[in-house]
């Protein structure tokens, strides 16, 4: 769906709504230093290789988008820090409840607010023409869909059973 105004994000907001009030129980940097949030009921992975791991019914991925961690509107950490510097800050938002998950127009920023006063703000670089095919962020949902917002002002809701090569991204 094309995003031409704030209202074009309303349908996306509706699909995200069930995440509000859910517990964010793990926050970590995954491969490629992508920020990953595990949210909601803990479930097992499909792959037997991951038999010892659990994931959230909702899984958020930052797809390499710059982010800031805020408290009382002050920036206390950001994605430019070294991994080792970032780790303690990520712990601050573990085991907190998600109060807000708000995509914004016209800058396509995303704010995730937690019940302990912290916020994550994701700030896509809309001028990065080389990476228009990488989502600003992605959210695997509890009903096996994948929500994505792209820097070319589109968003998509597609089945997570779809092959990566068949996903619509433009």
């Amino acid at each position: 769906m094309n995003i031409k105004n704030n209202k074009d994000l309303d349908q996306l907001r509706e699909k995200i709504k069930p995440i509000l009030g859910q517990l964010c129980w793990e926050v970590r940097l995954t491969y490629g230093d992508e920020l990953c949030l595990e949210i909601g009921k803990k479930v097992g992975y499909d792959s037997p290789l991951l038999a010892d791991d659990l994931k959230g019914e909702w899984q958020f991925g930052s797809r390499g988008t710059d982010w800031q961690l805020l408290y009382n509107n002050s920036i206390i950490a950001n994605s430019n820090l070294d991994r080792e510097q970032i780790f303690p800050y990520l712990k601050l938002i573990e085991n907190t409840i998600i109060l807000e998950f708000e995509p914004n127009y016209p800058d396509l920023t995303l704010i995730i607010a937690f019940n302990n006063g912290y916020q994550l703000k994701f700030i896509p670089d809309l001028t990065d023409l080389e990476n228009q095919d990488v989502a600003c962020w992605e959210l695997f949902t509890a009903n096996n869909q994948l929500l994505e917002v792209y820097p070319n002002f589109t968003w998509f809701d597609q089945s997570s059973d779809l092959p990566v090569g068949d996903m619509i991204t433009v």
Partner: protein
Amino acid sequence: MKDDIKQVNEIGKKHNLNTRQRKEFGKFLENEKKKGRIGTKNERGDYTWHELDQKALEFLAKTKTVMGDDLN
């Protein structure tokens, strides 16, 4: 960062992973690095294209073996 993410996506396309499997493959890579089985792309131990390709084959082969049938 975006570079590595794009590479995993491209590997996912090459091996016909669905997006959920692509996500699980990313978790597998994360675990592999934690176990010391790192790549040679950079100081972070990320994987080159060839190494990612090999990792994908490993991910799929072991999953097929345990599951007993073709994942795809």
